């Protein structure tokens, strides 16, 4: 509960800029709901005028109808303004929440992205925020009007006739009780339904998602049988859950109708005894009809609000994640690095008690070409994460041009690296936008020259709008190899002083790769570069080859000397030729 209070305080903070709209909303909600409550009173008065043939005071009736018209007008206007205000508050505050959560996302350490599935962050940022908006909107619209309607009705009923009002007040909890009873008993059924449904979804996901494999292994009949078994089970469970939950409406309606009948009974008696007019009785009857509705609505709103608070909590959790340590206040801007790197006793681990890198030393001279090889999980990618300062070292230090990288601003450090990864990422936009990512002010000539260097130019020219072709989400129609070529063009355009190529050509067929090698070789001249590759032929030319295993460098030297040494590297190299 305490954490709920905290979340609510946070929500209020986001609502604060819109206090004027909220005030308007509350004011107009009050006006419209109280006025619309007054309508049955007027209708009652009108009915009281309809005494009998020749006894109707038409002038008085016209007066009442005139008042009714005014009230209807104001009340409707009030309703509309209230709704518009609520919309404004809910959607704008939600926009602000989303914006700040997204901004925080930009500052989170990479470890967060690496350890949380994309779907999780996405659903917090999109679906949860959306549910929150719906809940907030419904809460505003219905909670306050509902509350006012209940209080107003009570007051009006009591002022018309106390005894009959008491009958209504005493019986109302019965309807709530019935609704609560049904809800309580169906919730376990719903839980069972959602468990069975989850099983079904995962069967569908696995089988239909891998339908080709199912067919390749002639597994169709078994898949259908497994599905049908679960489906029959779900049918049984769902029928129960749906039927029992659908009892709520008829049952509460039944109770409400009973209350209505009792009002007719006691009201009728009161009229006969002269305590009540016929018009007041009709007003009473219409109150009895409407009175319980806000109760049901409010109980709905409460669940909805609870839901909204939970969702808001999940969004705030994202917004509360510890951001990466900010750049030092006196952090230097690394202008154009010479490219000297020194790793001194670097220690690192992703998980606290599972050390990965323990004491790594490395000295790279400016312009040197360093290749990293080793089996999966040996720490190649981790080393790159540390060089780019995607992660901070847990011990030791990394220095560029003699200065610890933590003393530079992140932005300037990273701007000195050109990085091509195995997993290509293209931004939704045009081909040109993607190539100029690192140099937004590049001229057309520069862009084309870079694309020609990376052998991307010819296929780009075959696209419908060449460099202005818009590529969809995840790169759309481009092949993996083509995407990689575009990523290489980026680097060829921005030409930063240090390069990181992590399986940069893994999806490009070997013949095209061979053609790019020249361009790569030219680019690497005078630039410190780190190369990770599966194909040993691509790394033979390196000045230094680091052979890594379990987070440590086990061999170091050039191709020739490592082969001569006959260690891990030579074993790996020779295995390419063995059958």
């Amino acid at each position, binding site marked *: 509960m305490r954490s709920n209070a905290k979340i609510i305080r946070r929500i209020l903070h986001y609502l604060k800029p819109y206090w004027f709209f909220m005030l308007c909303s509350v004011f107009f909600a009050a006006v419209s709901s109280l006025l619309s409550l007054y309508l049955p009173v007027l209708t009652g008065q009108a009915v009281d005028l309809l005494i009998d043939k020749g006894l109707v005071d038409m002038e008085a009736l016209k007066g009442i109808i005139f008042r009714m018209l005014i009230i209807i007008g104001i009340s409707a206007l009030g309703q509309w303004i209230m709704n518009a205000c609520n919309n404004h508050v809910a959607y704008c505050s939600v926009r602000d929440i989303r914006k700040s959560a997204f901004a925080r996302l930009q500052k989170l350490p990479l470890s967060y992205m690496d350890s949380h599935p994309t779907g999780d962050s996405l659903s917090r940022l999109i679906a949860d925020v959306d549910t929150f908006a719906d809940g907030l909107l419904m809460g505003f619209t219905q909670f306050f009007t509902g509350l006012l309607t209940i209080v107003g009705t009570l007051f009006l009923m009591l002022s018309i006739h106390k005894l009959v009002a008491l009958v209504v007040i005493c019986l109302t909890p019965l309807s709530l009780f019935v609704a609560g009873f049904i809800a309580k008993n169906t919730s376990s059924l719903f839980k069972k339904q959602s468990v069975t449904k989850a099983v079904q979804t995962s069967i*569908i996901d696995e089988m239909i998602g891998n339908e080709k494999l199912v067919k390749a292994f002639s597994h169709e009949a078994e898949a259908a049988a497994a599905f049908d078994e679960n489906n029959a089970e779900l049918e049984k469970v769902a029928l129960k859950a749906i039927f029992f939950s659908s009892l709520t409406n008829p049952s509460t309606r039944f109770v409400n109708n009973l209350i209505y009948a009792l009002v007719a009974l006691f009201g009728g008696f009161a009229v006969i005894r002269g305590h009540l007019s016929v018009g007041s009785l009709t007003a009473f009857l219409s109150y009895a009809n409407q009175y319980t509705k806000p109760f049901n609505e409010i109980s709905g709103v409460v669940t909805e609000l609870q839901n909204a608070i939970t969702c808001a909590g999940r969004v705030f959790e994202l917004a509360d994640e510890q951001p990466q340590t900010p750049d030092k206040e006196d952090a230097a801007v690394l202008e154009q690095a010479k490219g000297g790197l020194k790793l001194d006793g670097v220690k690192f681990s992703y998980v606290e008690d599972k050390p990965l890198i323990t004491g790594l030393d490395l000295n790279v001279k400016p312009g040197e070409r360093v290749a990293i090889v080793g089996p999966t999980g040996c720490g190649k990618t981790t080393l790159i994460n540390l060089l780019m300062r995607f992660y901070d070292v847990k011990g030791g230090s990394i220095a560029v041009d003699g200065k610890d990288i933590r003393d530079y601003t992140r932005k300037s450090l990273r701007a000195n690296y050109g990085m091509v990864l195995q997993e290509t990422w293209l931004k939704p936009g045009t081909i040109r936008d993607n190539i100029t990512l690192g140099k937004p002010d590049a001229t057309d000539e520069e862009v084309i020259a870079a694309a020609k260097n990376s052998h991307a130019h010819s296929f780009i020219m075959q696209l419908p709008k060449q460099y202005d072709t818009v590529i969809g989400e995840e790169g759309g129609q481009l092949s993996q190899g083509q995407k990689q070529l575009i990523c290489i063009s980026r680097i060829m355009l921005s030409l930063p002083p240090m390069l990181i190529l992590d399986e940069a050509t893994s999806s490009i067929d070997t013949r095209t790769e061979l053609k790019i090698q020249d361009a790569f070789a030219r680019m690497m001249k005078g630039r410190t570069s780190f190369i990770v590759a599966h194909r040993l032929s691509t790394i033979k030319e390196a000045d230094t080859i680091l052979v890594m295993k379990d987070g440590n460098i086990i061999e170091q030297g050039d191709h020739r000397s490592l082969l001569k040494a006959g260690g891990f590297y030579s074993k790996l190299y020779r295995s390419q030729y063995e059958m």
Partner: protein
Amino acid sequence: MKNLWKYFGSYKKECVLGPLFKLLEASFELFIPLVVKQIIDVGIPNGDEGYIIQRVLLMAALTFIGLVCSLTAQFFSARAAVGFSAKVKSAVFSHVQTLSYAELDKTGTSTLITRLTSDINTLQGGVNMSLRLFLRSPFIVFGAVVMAFTIDVKAALIFVVTVLALSLVVYGIMLITVPMHKKVQNDLDKVTAAARSNIGGVRVIRAFGLEEKEEEGFRNSNDALVRMQILAGKISALLNPVTFVLINLGLCYLIYQGGIAVDTGRLSRGAVVALVNYMSQILVELIKLANLIVQLSRALACGSRISSVMDIKSSMKDGDKEYANESGAAELEFKDVSFRYVDAAEDAISGISFKLPAGATLGVIGGTGSGKSSVINLIPRFYDTTGGNVYVDGTDVSQYKEASLRRRIAVVPQKSVLFTGTVRENLSWGRKDATDEDMEEALKMAQAYDFVMEKEGGLDYRVAQGGSNFSGGQKQRLAIARALVRKPAILILDDSTSALDYATDAALRKAVKEMKDAPTTVIVSQRSASIMHADMILVLDDGHAVGLGTHDELMKGCSVYQEIYNSQFGGDEYAK
């Protein structure tokens, strides 16, 4: 939509009884204002308390019968809706099993999944709601108007005008807002896409220092969404006040006319009260109806999406010949084969011919998009050729019964997928009646025996969804073992050793070669090393065979092969 109706077949009774009982309940509800009228017109002026008690008891009785009818209706409609959707689901699922690769490519599995899950759920809700309310709400509106006519024709005309005006307004507002809500949904999709792309590209974005730009882009799509939401909200917000105004205008006019009628003695006071009550019943039902129409139109949209899946027919006709080769390897022949994917502009492969003797190994190599996968997809007849023929043991594959042929072919796909269940269950996909010895043997050949046995329970170790508790290389080796358990006549490895290091890859190939009844093997690879020792190598370039022969022959006569080989080994290495 039509092809879904038949699934209501076994629920005809429920589909009639559900709405029927609902109508009964509604009729009882319509009588209540009449009873109140009697209390006001007869009971009260006469001061007859006994009469009032009698009328109130009648009301209670009507209410109670209404409750019973309504519960019966809920039961029947729930049964019809749930039963219907279960039948549809089962039919769709089985139908998808009959589709061939060509149809799966065209439709895409992710949309099939949405249709089987969320679309069917929406449809079920729509059916349930329709059975309960679709007749009831119009019936009450109509009934209230009819009741008004029985009380007074002139007053009833006010009802007719009001109902018509209301329907127009509700319809008009929906006409405007439905497309707006679609636009809102699209804008929301854009926001989602922006966020997804941002998270996916986090390394590149930070490497290029693009965080602020990303924030700006996100802000723009977020702002566009909110603008649309507020606009749509403003118009939707009109619905309630406008219906409120219209119904109350009708009410005012009714009271005014009622006043005149009572004054001239045409109507009683109770009659006017009854008319007022009917008016408010109409208001309640119309609001329900508007919601129902929104839900129903969504359900119909989902229904037609599901129905379109059922309309997809498999383009492949099953052969009638049983493939009888039970234990040996198979002979494989391609004769002038060409193949084009549906809707593609160009052939994926064309003019491919080769003959591979039983037990031999074929290596297929070539650049990205050269047609390697297309070649092997034709062997188990995942697709039909568009020209030429594929023969297994001398018979065209399209003449075999699909199941009997595929039973003897094992494929290891590029992407290794494991299924939820134990390791044993996964391996038994290869051969249903495989013994533990068969499985262990296959695991050993696939170089997977050691790490499986290290796991708790060995063969009984549970594979998590998507195989997430195994590494990429381990999954690949398990997928290979799954294929080997089958002891196939033809084994197809579709670039499926990419996650293995060279030594493991070589050990695997050696083990397969030494198998008893070693299968005819087709290896697709990007690596020269994986295929250079094959009996025959097919070199593909842009869908054409540019070389066919042994490694030595190709090194002499095929320039593409030489280029590939040299790019991986470096020119000087071969001379050693």
